[in-house]
């Protein structure tokens, strides 16, 4: 267990170094001067130069990189140029909407896909189960930005059931928050459930021919018990791995969905930061996403230990 934690910690460091370095240099390629962007096109050249100096943009690139890396090691991610506040604080202010969307959609998709797949396994000849099989392939094929617009067209514009924007904090104002969350969550759930159903079905099919199921049936367990006690726990493992590796895709989807449904989350923040050339903020958000990725995968590893006695013992 400690070995696992240490390995994850090592991965965390490696991933952060690579992602941080990559983003640092990619961002520096962006044409346009952040100092000029702040002061506007009419600013005097001397003012622009002074601001560049104060932002540390005048030194050679490697010097900027070392300064930045040193500051990050001290927990200082710099000051956002547009928000005039420490990056960590700005990120913290925008994290709740993104986390709400990510966690809720993942949990809903997880249970939905387990339900659908178990049903398909128990009654594979059921026409509805077979239709769902085709639908999950279709769900994988739908561009998320396009379903978002379709849902807005049908449920906001035509039927007027749910608003197309207007995010509220779920914990302080649930009455307004829930209807506004329905459409963005639906989009995320469609894509994720489709993926999870395909993953889970494949692993379920790998379990079904194994001999231990015959033992379980011979000792008199009902088909339902065989399914819930023996097949599902084993078949869930690849799905849980998928949860971890799907995280990056989920965040990518959330970025687009936040911009369509005007949700003030990390994606919204990032899009704004990119358009205003807010270097420190872009770096802060991307590093933060990378940290989240490693943490999610750590959670995945820990849940292995809970689900699989073999891992627990070793």
């Amino acid at each position, binding site marked *: 267990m400690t070995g696992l934690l240490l390995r994850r910690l090592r*991965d965390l460091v*490696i*991933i952060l170094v*690579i*992602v941080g370095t*990559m983003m640092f240099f*990619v*961002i*520096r*390629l*962006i*044409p346009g001067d952040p100092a000029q962007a702040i002061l506007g096109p009419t600013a005097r050249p001397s003012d622009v130069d002074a601001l560049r100096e104060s932002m540390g943009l005048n030194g050679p690139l490697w010097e900027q990189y070392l300064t930045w890396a040193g500051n990050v090691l001290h927990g200082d991610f710099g000051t956002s140029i547009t928000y005039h506040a420490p990056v960590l604080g700005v990120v913290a202010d925008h994290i709740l909407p993104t986390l709400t969307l990510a966690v809720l959609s993942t949990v809903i998709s997880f249970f939905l896909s387990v339900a659908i797949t178990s049903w*398909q*396994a128990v009654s*594979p*000849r059921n026409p509805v189960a*077979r239709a769902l*099989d085709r639908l999950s*392939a*279709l769900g*994988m*094929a*739908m*561009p*998320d*930005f*396009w379903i978002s*617009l*379709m849902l*807005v*067209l049908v449920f906001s*514009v035509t039927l007027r059931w749910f608003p197309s924007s207007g995010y509220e904090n779920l914990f302080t104002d649930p009455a307004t928050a829930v209807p506004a969350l329905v459409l963005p969550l639906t989009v995320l759930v469609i894509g994720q459930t489709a993926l999870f159903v395909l993953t889970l*079905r*494949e692993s*379920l*099919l*790998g379990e*079904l*021919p194994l001999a231990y199921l*015959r033992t379980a*049936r*011979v000792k008199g367990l009902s*088909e339902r018990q065989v399914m819930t006690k023996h097949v599902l726990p084993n078949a869930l493992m690849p799905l849980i791995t998928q949860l971890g*590796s799907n995280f*990056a*895709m989920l*965040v*990518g989807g959330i*970025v*687009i969905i936040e*911009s369509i449904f005007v949700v003030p989350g990390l994606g919204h923040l*990032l*899009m704004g930061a*990119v358009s205003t050339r807010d270097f420190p903020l*872009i770096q802060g958000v*991307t590093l933060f*996403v*990378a940290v989240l*990725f*490693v943490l999610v995968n750590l959670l995945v590893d820990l849940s292995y230990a809970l689900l699989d006695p073999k891992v627990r013992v070793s």
Partner: protein
Amino acid sequence: MSVALAEKTSPVREKPSSGRAARVFRRNRMLVITSAVLAVIVLAVIVLPFFLPSVSATDPVNRLLPPSAAHPLGTDSFGRDVLARLVSGGRASLGLSALITLCAAFTGLVIGLISGFFRAADAVLMRVMDAWMSFPAIILAMALAISLGASIWTELIALTVIFTPFTARVIRSRVLGIAGRAYIGAARVSGMSRWKILVVHVFPNVLPLALVQVVILSAAAMLVDGAMSFLGLGIAPPTPTWGNMIAEGRSYLVQAPWLVIAPGVTIMVCVFLLNLIGSSLRIAVDARARTLSEMQRLRTRRPSGS
């Protein structure tokens, strides 16, 4: 473990014969049908623009017309024919996705082969790939597109960079399974150089899986390409792509929903077809892949007493 399991059952580089091909196709009616439909779409995209009105011919009087006989998919906010733009946009969208797929599949194949076969390189390469994958693709693509300026080439570079690790990982796991085989050991004992073993013995065994990966990749490339165009990071508006047609139609979602529906359905159909082709090909190539009909067979095999 799972790799070893697949190795036991998957066919090892059988000589392709016409009889076998015919059998494979008879067994995979889905593969034949989906490939045929996709071929028709590709053909239409290549041929039809010669017979349709110009994509840039504006006609302000007839703007936002609903679908009719003259304009089967209606007209957009400039009075341009949506069908013509859709077909012509297909050239950009399909062509770019194909190009991205080829580039990413090639780099992924090379990295996967090297990292699966040379253990020393593996440790470094896979760490880098992990870091790469931890990154939301769209963010990296956004950063690259903005830093290098939005153009076809930027998008090509960005999406190649994004999709490379996914191919590399799949190829690597297959190479790992093959590298432990007896015939690789035999080749090594006979004094063959490692690079030659990689090219002559490993590569041909990986190729079928790589082809499947190419198809799956092209579906993913279409989706991300659509999203990039939609966000305005792909090919710029006067040239139609399916993604930027949706972005342009978004402002007229209420008055002219066909502007958004038509390109969206087209993307969906293409991705759907590619996914189906990919999964049918996988069943032919990879013994681990199973389908719902197999679930039925497995279920019927269960002891009658239960």
